[in-house]
């Protein structure tokens, strides 16, 4: 029924501009050869992007490419290409979509016809990240190399201390930072070897410094969304995440959030909200969205529900809140930032019996952003971000209280895992729950 789908209305000007970053990033991978630059396939939130920027390597963000194919509802042809090679349909569809594209581009010797946004250029290297984030990050580069055998694969790691109720993560942080720093140093050596250039450490330090400032302005901007009515919704944030996620360490990314900050300030002054009548405020509690069904955010908005905050793609924090140890080594600074972005929730979770760091984050957002409920999205093909959502929902209700919650189901790329009729039915039922809760609250506050 794609013909009758309403495109999502963007509440902010900035969200509209975010798409340009995505297009420009893909275009850069196609132009790189002419400009004598190397292209690296990379995977988001890897802690490696600042090094790559400092080495003038052009990152090709595979997840972004797959997301674009999904949003254009034009991924199926790539998924089938991968399926024909025996990649199961149950595997990460970001990976299988991109691998399908890679196989096809290799077959043709050029970008396959009608590839969304012109496709991605052939990489000169693949920089993987065996984080504690997701298995496809190690298997996908390997699987890609099966079809691009001449392209070197480098694999690094960035771990963080696992959450444990009974042991103090501080005892282990330095071990993890040391490990991550050494891995980053190995990446620098790999980049030097494959570009024939030496790392300019001053430049890297300046880029890392710019990233820190971008994190700060990003959080300052996003915290403006606490305003009632909220000036910006998660539906927009799924676009405005692009510069932070794919262009960290560039002046353009920093400027983008500066501009968004000003725009939100202006909207708040005018009391201009996402919807005319903001009835319910919701936390997007977890999950990557169904990119092909972003219009579902509009469906929420049309019913008076807005998302002033989301955990997804908020991969930043105010630097001062992380309390990072001083260091002159930019790599060690990246490592500390990485470790602390996870562990800085641990103390809070330890204070509330039966809680979890991920749940503490949701609770904090519920309170700070004055929200009424939590919506999760479970993407079928991605275990990394979506296994454990039921647990988060249960712990939230047990440790904090009976908050209305909804778990939606879909996929990041594969439309066949998504059921629009069922999704809208679930949203409708959730709205009724929220309405009942609001009425009860009003009745209670009116009181005897």
């Amino acid at each position, binding site marked *: 029924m794609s013909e009758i789908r309403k495109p999502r209305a963007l509440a902010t000007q900035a969200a509209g501009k975010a798409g340009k970053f995505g297009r420009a990033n893909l275009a850069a991978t196609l132009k790189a050869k002419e400009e004598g630059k190397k292209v690296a396939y990379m995977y988001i939130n890897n802690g490696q992007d600042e090094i790559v920027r400092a080495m003038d390597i052009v990152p090709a963000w595979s997840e972004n490419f797959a997301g674009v194919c999904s949003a254009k509802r034009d991924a199926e042809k790539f998924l089938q290409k991968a399926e024909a090679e025996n*990649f199961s349909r149950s595997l990460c569809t970001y*990976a299988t979509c991109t691998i399908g594209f890679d196989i096809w581009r290799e077959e043709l010797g050029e970008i396959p016809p009608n590839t969304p946004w012109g496709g991605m250029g052939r990489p000169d290297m693949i920089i993987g990240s065996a984080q504690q984030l997701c298995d*496809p990050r*190690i*298997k996908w580069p390997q699987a890609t190399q099966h079809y691009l055998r001449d392209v070197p694969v480098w*694999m690094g790691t960035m771990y963080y201390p*696992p959450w444990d109720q009974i042991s103090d993560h501080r005892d282990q942080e330095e071990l993890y930072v040391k490990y991550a720093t050494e891995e980053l140093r190995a990446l620098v050596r790999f980049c030097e070897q494959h570009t024939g250039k030496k790392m300019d450490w001053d430049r890297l330090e300046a880029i890392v410094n710019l990233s820190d400032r971008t994190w700060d302005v990003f959080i300052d901007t996003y915290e403006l969304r606490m305003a009632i009515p909220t000036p910006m919704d998660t539906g927009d944030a799924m676009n405005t995440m692009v510069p932070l996620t794919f262009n960290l360490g560039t002046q353009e990314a920093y400027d983008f959030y500066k501009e968004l900050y000003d725009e939100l300030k202006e909207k708040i002054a005018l009391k201009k909200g996402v919807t005319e009548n903001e009835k319910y405020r919701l936390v997007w509690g977890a999950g990557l969205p169904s990119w092909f069904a972003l219009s579902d955010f509009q469906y929420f908005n049309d019913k008076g529900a807005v998302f002033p905050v989301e955990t997804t793609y908020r991969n930043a924090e105010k630097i001062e809140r992380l309390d990072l140890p001083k260091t002159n080594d930019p790599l060690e600074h990246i490592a500390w930032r990485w470790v602390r972005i996870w562990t800085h929730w641990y103390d809070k979770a330890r204070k509330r019996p039966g809680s979890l760091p991920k749940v503490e984050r949701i609770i904090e957002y519920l309170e700070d952003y004055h929200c009424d409920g939590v919506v999760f999205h479970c993407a079928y093909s991605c*275990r990394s971000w979506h296994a454990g959502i039921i647990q988060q929902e249960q712990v939230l209700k047990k440790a904090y209280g009976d908050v209305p919650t909804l778990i939606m189901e879909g996929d990041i790329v594969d439309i066949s895992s998504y059921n629009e009729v069922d999704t809208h039915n679930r949203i409708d039922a959730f709205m009724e729950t929220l309405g009942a809760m609001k009425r009860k609250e009003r009745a209670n506050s009116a009181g005897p």
Partner: protein
Amino acid sequence: MADEQLSGLATAAKYYSDYGSRARELKSMGKKVIGYFSSLCPVEILTAAGVVPVRMKGNVSEAITRADAYMETMICPFVRNVFDAAIKGKYRYLDGMVMPHQCDSLDRTSDIWDYNLGFQYYHFLNYPHLADDPSIEFTNEILRIFIGTLEKFTGRNITDQALADAVRAHNNNRRVMRELYGLRKEDVPRISGAEMMQVLIAAVSLPVDESTALIRRVTEEVTNRAPGFSAKKARIMLVGDQIDDIAIVNAIEGTGAHLVMDDLSVGSKMYWDDVAETGDLIQGITDRYLNKLKIPTTFVSAGNTYEENLEARFGHVKSHIKDFNVDGVILFIYKYCDPYGFEVPAIKSYIESVGTPVIYIEDEYSTSSLGRVKTRIEAFLEMIAG
């Protein structure tokens, strides 16, 4: 040791079908029992701590009824099945659990196990996915942290001597199991695939010395069997992760083939490589589990070219095919498994390149679809027979 009157094979069959029964007996005698997942778990350390290690397994014939309220359906069907058993009380006898970081389905459900099963002891062992120098050093450290948590739990130190003894005992266990595997190289193997599976499963439910004694008894019994004579049957090797039930083995052997070898995480993967008994034992353990053990979640970058890497990743499969005279390989991969799923094209074409046919079967950890699986296996054997 229990059941001296039963034969080795009968004892294995008993421990296989009443899984964990020996651990429950030992528990009632005051021993502590620790369950663990994955071939990555350094069982030497558990043995040295004086606890009884038991490999967690599920039941392919049991439908998942309660786990769905805790775990999303796109999590590994094996992991969901085991959790279903645990939440139904089948692992109530465990004092604790070790969860090695192998894959997302374990990592991302770690809190679910920890929070809902109420074990006295729970440890997430944060293995890296790499085996480069910083990862080796890091792993040495996290193994020391692991040892510390066990010492706190049991209230006694793990001495260097205890660790050395445990390393030797487990190496010995691996050696006798390799000897038993060796009997499968004959034209008509002395031990069937189904019997072997029962031994493999019984072996990971016992203290190491009892396990070794059981394997020895089985080896002795089957060595004394009269050599078999039969028409040439297809010799099959099974490749996958935790296939821990005889249902699939029976499906293979029921069609008249011999299952002669495996590359499974409860099978040969566990037994082919030892821990160095000299030098720093922790370093030796790290080296065994990160470098020697070949599993898809540990990234291998040993070669200068992709082809050299393939050899480093799958070369052991090629050796098994040659040593055990394998005619065909069944690649049996669970649905929703990214680590194994992403290497299907690579391992399939690698094995085919040595001239051995491969059938790739994707299935769940359940006998519900066994009929369809059987048809595919039979057709594969008909195809090999030509």
